[in-house]
Structures are given as C-alpha cells and as structure tokens.
C-alpha cells in the first residue's frame, strides 16, 4: 500500500515537475514549431468525388496538396502540390479540371484531372477560400475572405471581370442544382449599421448572398439573424431544399450561463420552396451539443441531411421528412428560429456518429450509400455507411505516426469536449484560430461590466499581458484557470494538455498582410501615414508628449509596448479606463475596434472616440492625413 502511495506520489511529482518546467519554459522563451510539425501533417479539410466515382480528391491544408485516392482501394494515386494553405476546391462542370483556392498566397491552382498536374496558377483576390464554376464552364466564382467579395473570373484565362459584394469574411460557395444561382456564405458577421449607446451590444447579422450565375450579379441576400459564422450550404437534388450550417452566439447575455444553454446554439437555416420563409433549427440536444457545424450534405433521395460538427467530432444525421413535419407543424408567415429550443432536435436528429478531430468537409457517394468525412486533425477520412449510420472504415492519410505537442494543442483548441455539455471550444469564438467579430460580456469582470471585443489570436506570442485590461500574465493563465472556471464550467485541462494548447496558440503565425507591397516598399500614402505615426510635433509645431505619440504605445514589431494606458475610451460599464495597448498585426482585418468594439471602423477610433486627443494627437489632422495614417496602419 505504502509503495503504491509512493508510486502515485512519485508519478504526480514527476508530472507536476514536467508541467511546471514546461510552463516556465513557455512563459519565458518563445517556442518554435519544428518544420516537420507544420508541414508533414496532411490536415484534410475538403473532399470531392470524381464524376465517375472512381477517385477521391482530398484537399490537404497543412501539407498543401491535393491527394488523389482510388475509391476501390483508397490507395494513393498521386499527391499534387498546390499553393499555401488551400481552403476550398471544386471540379469544373465537365470534371476535366480541379480548381483549388490557395488562401495564403492568393492564387488558384488549376489541375488537369486527366494528367493530375497543375496546368495553371492564377493570381486572384485576398484570401480565396472557395471556388465554383458555372454550369456553362465560362465563369469561375471565387470567394475572397479578406476582401469580403466574390470575384468573377473567365474560366479559361483566369482574368477577373468583376467583384461582387458578399458578406464579411466571404468563404464558401455552392452552385444550385439547376446552375441558376450561386450561394455565398461568410464567417464573420456583417458590420453593424446603426449607432447608439448600446451599439457594441448588437446581435450579429449575417446573410446568404444569392448570385445570379448567368448574369454574375447579386440578386438577393437571405438574412441570417443573430448568426456569426456561416459555413457550407447544400441543396437537395431537386433544388427545393437549401440548408446552411452556422453558429448562433448568444452574446447579449453574459457568457456565464452554459448551464442554461446561454453561450451558443449550433444551427441550420433551411430555405427554399420546401420550406417557405427561412427557418433556423438547432442541432443541439440538452446533454450533447453539436459544436461547430461545418459541412452539409443531403442524400440524393432527400431522406437525410448529414452535418459535420468539428467541435463535437461527430456527424449529425437528420431525417428530412421528420424535419419537414416539425417546421410545418404551425403556419409561418415570417422567418422563424427554434435555436434555443433544446428539445427540438429530438424531433428530427436520428443519429450522431462519432468521427475524428475537427471533422470538416463531407462528400456523399453518388448513390448516397457512403459518406466520406475529412477529420482534419487526425489526418483520416471516416467512411460512413449511411444506411447503418456507422463508420465502416477509416482511411489513414500518410503522415507522421506520432502526434506532436503542437498538433495535440491544436486538437484541444478545436474541440468542445472540455466544456459543460460540450457546448463550446476555443474555436467557437476564435473561428479558424482568428476571432468572431462579436463583442462579449465575460463573467470575471462582473455581469454587464467590461464588455470586450474578441481579438485575433495570430502572432500573439510574446505580447503579454493578455486580456484588454492586462489581467492575465501569460497564455497558460489566460487559457487555463480563467477559461476553465469561467467558460468551460466543466472538465479542466491536465497540465500537459494546457501546455500543448499554449504551444499551439503561441505558434500561430500572422497571415500575409495584403496591404503591403510585394517588394516591401510602402505606397506614398503609407509613407505619409508612417510619418504621422512617428511624429513628435503636431501641425502647429507644438511638441507631442512622448506618451501621446502613436509610436510610443504601439512600438516594436507587433505594434505594442505591452503596457496599460487610459486613452479616453472608458465607458460607464468599464471597471477601469486602463487598457493594454493592442498589437497592430493585421489590424485591417479585425473590426470592430477599441476594447469594447464600439468603433466600427479604424476611422471611428479618431473621428468619434478621440475628442480630447488622449488616443494620440490626431485632431489637428486633415481628413486626407487621417486617411494616410490609416493606410499605414493597414500595412502593419
């Protein structure tokens, strides 16, 4: 007995020592992810079947390639290298080409599906995330996440002919079965239109952008109220039922009510002739949330809907006739939402099939008998028998045999298993490791106090302290006790898991800045803006106190001196006016601004919220000088 106690105590001591050393190591020294850690994992994110059903195309985000598998044996036919961080792909209308959207180098790879070679690489817009060809094979449509639009390209030359305004963070495109329309979704909510004292407490609004494919113009937008994060859309073969996967954050109440379902609902919005006015239905049930729905597929006979839920690591199966009975139970003249009804899904969800980590894209076989599911963070494809609703095989993609700390950390980041009822994970708010464009009322500061804008995570390594009020000294503290206590309200991380999670977060690199010139030089406007950013005298020749110069607080390569300041933006609901100078990395992407998201644009920081020049001396600037300053900031 005593030896057993000694053994347990010894194990505990060793574990704690390792964890402590790891924490200390992480806190004090930057961690570099090994090149192999980054490149070798496949990270499958989307799947397609060739028109004859013989080949499976797997888009691998981390290894940056398309892997072509033989469907009968799942053997690799070829690996085709594409561009940086590919995010979406699709086949041409005749199946002869495969188009790949490479999100980090702003290109489109064109693959000949006969020779399985890249025949062209076309420059496209900022962060292309999805691509579809129209039915005639004349036009390509590309969703650009950063420029919030859908580019229209000549399908033969890649020449761009126009940009269509989509939702913010435009990311996923779907062609309707009859080829008449393209439906575009977006991952960040659209900017708020109205301004009031409570403007930063508005619920998010999103849309499905409906594009007339032959005319290449936007003809309608289906509003998605209270939605932030919209992913894939699918249609029934007859085109009468459309389904889109989405997140429904409940950001107007304090994030302290997981016990009452008060954080997120994960839902589908149904639309089309079978539905009438759009209907939002939840995927969640009381004890088991369907966190982070992403991919959607509808069976050819319209009997089932399959939804991949990355945070819950499962595929949710919905019986369509039962779903139709549920939504048509009472007549509707307006769009309606059942998002908060946790009893609803029992009426139509018929199975929840466990799959792998961060499950993403889905592909049904053409007869509907098999469903292929990409498990991004396991490097596997689950093959589901759709009649039995069970996984019948798992295709393992070639890659490292071991799971690195970085990958374990990424798995932890993307799972919802640690939170009460599996409701939320880091990625629920930090979509694709970024942010969600939503302001939240977090519990530690008191209910209704310190409303905060969600921040981008990329490049946050070595920018301690964290939180707007600088209350957390390190990432392990930010992600550990605070998150466990106030967010998850359930299982806590063990120390190694927390260490891995911190390792992953610290490893997140900044995406390429699209406002910088390729040659590293600055535009004339950016040069003028930089001079304003660094100036020590105002336009009247008066010296600007050092602490009131832009460059003082926003110093260093990341644009922060990591100290707290009062820049005159304190609101009556804020506990303190002291705020940490935020870093400026890719600041152009992260609206809204200021600690509470009250500035909708960069301009508003100074045109509305800096009346006393406490947030830098700016009120002597002309409008064009302020524009120059903003052009410079966008290039940071």
């Amino acid at each position: 007995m005593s030896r057993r106690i000694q053994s347990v105590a010894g194990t505990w001591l060793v574990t704690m020592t390792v964890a402590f050393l790891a924490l200390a190591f992480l806190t004090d020294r930057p961690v570099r992810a090994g090149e192999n850690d980054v490149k070798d994992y496949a990270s499958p994110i989307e799947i397609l079947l060739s028109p004859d059903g013989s080949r499976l195309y797997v888009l691998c985000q981390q290894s940056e390639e398309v892997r072509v598998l033989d469907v009968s044996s799942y053997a690799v036919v070829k690996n085709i290298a594409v561009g940086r961080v590919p995010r979406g792909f699709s086949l041409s209308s005749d199946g002869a080409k495969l188009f790949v959207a490479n999100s980090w180098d702003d290109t489109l790879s064109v693959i000949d599906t006969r020779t399985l070679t890249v025949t062209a690489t076309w420059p496209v817009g900022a962060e292309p995330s999805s691509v579809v060809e129209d039915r005639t094979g004349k036009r390509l449509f590309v969703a650009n996440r950063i420029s919030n639009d859908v580019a229209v390209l000549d399908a033969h030359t890649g020449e761009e002919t126009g940009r269509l305004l989509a939702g913010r963070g435009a990311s996923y495109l779907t062609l309707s079965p009859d080829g008449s329309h393209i439906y575009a979704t977006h991952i960040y909510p659209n900017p708020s239109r109205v301004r009031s004292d409570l403007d930063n407490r508005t619920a998010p609004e999103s849309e499905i952008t409906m594009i007339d494919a032959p005319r290449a113009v936007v003809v309608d937008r289906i509003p998605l109220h209270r939605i932030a994060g919209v992913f894939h859309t699918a249609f029934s073969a007859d085109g009468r039922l459309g389904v889109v996967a989405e997140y429904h954050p409940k950001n107007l109440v304090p994030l302290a009510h997981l016990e009452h379902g008060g954080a997120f609902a994960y839902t589908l919005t149904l639309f089309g002739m079978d539905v009438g006015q759009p209907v939002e239905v939840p995927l969640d049930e009381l004890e088991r949330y369907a966190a982070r729905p992403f991919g959607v597929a509808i069976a050819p006979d319209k009997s089932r809907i399959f939804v991949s839920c990355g945070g819950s690591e499962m595929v949710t199966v919905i019986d369509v006739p039962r779903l139709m009975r549920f939504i048509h139970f009472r007549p509707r003249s307006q769009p309606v939402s059942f998002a908060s009804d946790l009893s609803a899904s029992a009426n139509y969800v018929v199975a929840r099939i466990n799959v792998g980590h961060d499950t993403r894209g889905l592909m049904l076989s053409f007869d509907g008998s098999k469903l292929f599911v990409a498990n991004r963070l396991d490097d596997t494809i689950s093959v589901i028998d759709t009649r039995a609703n069970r996984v019948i095989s798992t295709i393992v993609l070639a890659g490292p045999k071991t799971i690195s700390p970085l990958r374990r950390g990424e798995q932890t980041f993307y799972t919802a298993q640690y939170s009460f009822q599996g409701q939320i994970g880091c990625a629920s708010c930090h979509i694709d490791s970024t942010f969600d464009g939503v302001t939240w009322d977090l519990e530690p500061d008191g209910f209704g106090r310190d409303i905060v804008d969600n921040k981008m995570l990329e490049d946050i390594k070595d920018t301690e302290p964290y939180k707007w009020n600088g209350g957390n000294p390190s990432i392990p503290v930010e992600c550990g006790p605070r998150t466990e206590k106030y967010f998850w309200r359930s299982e806590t991380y063990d120390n190694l898991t927390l260490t891995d999670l911190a390792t992953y977060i610290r490893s997140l690199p900044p995406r390429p800045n699209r406002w910088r010139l390729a040659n590293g030089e600055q535009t004339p406007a950016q040069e003028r803006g930089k001079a304003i950013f660094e100036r020590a005298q105002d336009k009247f020749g008066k010296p600007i106190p050092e602490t009131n110069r832009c460059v003082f607080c926003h110093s260093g390569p990341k644009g922060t001196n990591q100290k707290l300041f009062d820049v005159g933006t304190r609101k009556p609901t804020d506990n303190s006016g002291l705020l940490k100078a935020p870093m400026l990395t890719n600041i152009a992407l992260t609206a809204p601004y200021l600690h509470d998201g009250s500035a909708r644009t960069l301009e508003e920081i100074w045109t509305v919220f800096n009346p006393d020049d406490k947030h830098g001396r700016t009120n002597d600037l002309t409008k064009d000088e302020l524009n120059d300053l903003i052009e410079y900031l966008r290039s940071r």
Partner: protein
Amino acid sequence: MKRSIFRTLLICAMLARVAFAAPPQMPRFRFENFTTANGLPNNHVFAVLVDGDRIWAGTENGLAVYENHAWKTYTTGDGLAHRAVLSLALDKRTGDVWAGTMGGLSRISGGRIDSYTQLTSGLSNDVVYGVSVEGENVWVATAAGGCRLNTRTGQWTLYNERNTPMIEIWTYGVSATPSKVYYAVWGSGVLEYDQKTGRWDKYEDPDGENEIVLFKDQGLIHEIVTSVSYVDNILWAATYFGDSRYDGRYWHNFLTKDSGLPSNFTNFIKGVDAKRAWFCTDKGLAYYDGVNWAVYRPSLTDGKPEMTVRDAQGKVTPVAVTTAPAHNYVLGIDFHGDDIWVATAKGLSHGIRQKN
C-alpha cells in the same frame, strides 16, 4: 432683264422654301409622370438612373426604385446614408447602385445597403453631389473635394486644393471613364484627371468670373460648373451661365442667345455621343442633335405641355403635344432605350418615345 427676273424668282423660291420648310424631325415623347400620388416618396427628384428594367429615383425623402410597375423606397432605416439622395451611378460590372446623399455615400447591392460617411470611412465630406463608377473605382464629388474609393482594396484617395489645381473644393459632379475623369467644380471650372499619367489639368473660363463672354468659343463658358459628361472623347460641361462642348482641342459654347437652350442655368448635362446631348435647365429639358434643338416643358406662361424645335437657321417651330415633363425645373435624365426618364423638382417623368 429676263435674267434679272429669273434670278429674283429663284431667290424668292429659295426663301419660300426656307420659310415654309417642315421643322427638323426631333424625338417626340409621351410623358407619364410619377409623384407622391402614384408611389414616389417625394416629388423633389434630384437624380434618376436606369438599371435594366429598374428605374432608381433619388428623392428628397428616400431612394425609390420602380420595378414591375411598383415603387419601393429605401430609407435611412434600411441603411441609406441620408434621406436626400442627390446623385446615382450604376456599376455595370456588378449591378450595384451607388447613391450620393446629403449625409454620405451608399452602396445598394442585392437589397443590402452599406453606407460610407466622413466619420466611418475615408470619404472627405458627407455632402455627396456626384458619383461615377469606373472599373473598380468609385469617384465621388463632395462639398469638400473629390474622392476615389478603390472597392478592391478599400483605399480612399482624396483630391482637393492640396494635390490638384482645384481652387474651390466644392465639387458638383463627376464623370469617370477608363481614360479620363472630369470633375465639375463650383467656381473652379472643370478638372481633368488623366488615368494613364495620373496628372491633373484644369479648364477655366478665360473671362474669369466676369458674367460676359468676350470671345465666343474661346474656352469653358463659365467657372461655376454644375455637371460634366464625358462620352466618345467629348466633354460636355454645364454651368449656371451656359454650356460647353470640348473635343480636346476646340470649345463650342451654348447660350440662349445663339442656341436652342431654354435657359443658361443648367443643372445637369448628359451626352448621348459626340454630337448629341441633353440639357436639364431651370426652364425645361433640351435636346441637341448636333444641329437642331428641341425643348420639352410645361409652358412657362400657362403650364400647358409644350415642345419647340429650333433648326440650324434659328427658326423656332412649336410642335403640338399633349404631355410634358412634370416640371420645367429639371435636375436629371437617363436613357432607357429610346425612352427617357427625367428628374424634376416636382416629380419623375417617363418620356415614352413616339413615332414622328
């Protein structure tokens, strides 16, 4: 003697032919007028835009769109920057409509309205008198200079007295094409931007601000320019003291005393091509086909529908009509095939082309 009699008869015959010749064939219209009585949100219509089979009307109380024989109005509640819509432009590549208002610039796209103001964006001033779309750029004329928004990058570039030859910054209209961009500047003539070189040039009244014309056709007719239209490499410019046509080398000016203009006070001008243009004045709508003029308006004396034609010799002939634009204070025009849509101070008019 015989020769003299013959010559006299010939001259008389020629004079008679001139005197009794039929007036030139100018386009005739049957006008259908829209007011608040049949769906417009306000009778004061500042601008009109034809967008396929949709007609957009910028009014003092909202942006109205006419489609399938019904009007729908967008207001500030829908996201419009301001209720008073002063100018309109169509992005033919995307189908989006851009509206300049008294409180900012709005983009209408698939039913969604995004607005830009001087507080929320790089727009120089909220009073947007003119807007024009060229490629991915939206060019804006404001009460504090011109602006260009690159819709791809989101970058705003401002044009004012600091970086152009603009003396006054009160820009009233803009016409942008891939080769040239022209600004109508109140009190500062016409500004020309060469897209290839990135250089600005300026055209002013050689007589300065004098209300006289010392030499006809020596340059721009007046400094107070209200509207510009650049089409087929020809600049048409409207002022409150006559109008001008410029072909890159020669100016030709139009005044009431030597043309068919019903008034020198011109609010808006729109060229059809190098020869033809429409003039929106405070005393009616005028059309110039390169030689002859036609004027359409309610009579200035009794309000009855009126159309007159002026030929090359200056002879004015009335044409019997039963309809006229809603009002003789005309603020804008756009073309719908052979039809025209006319914005006036008291309603919007649809001119339905009639066979002559």
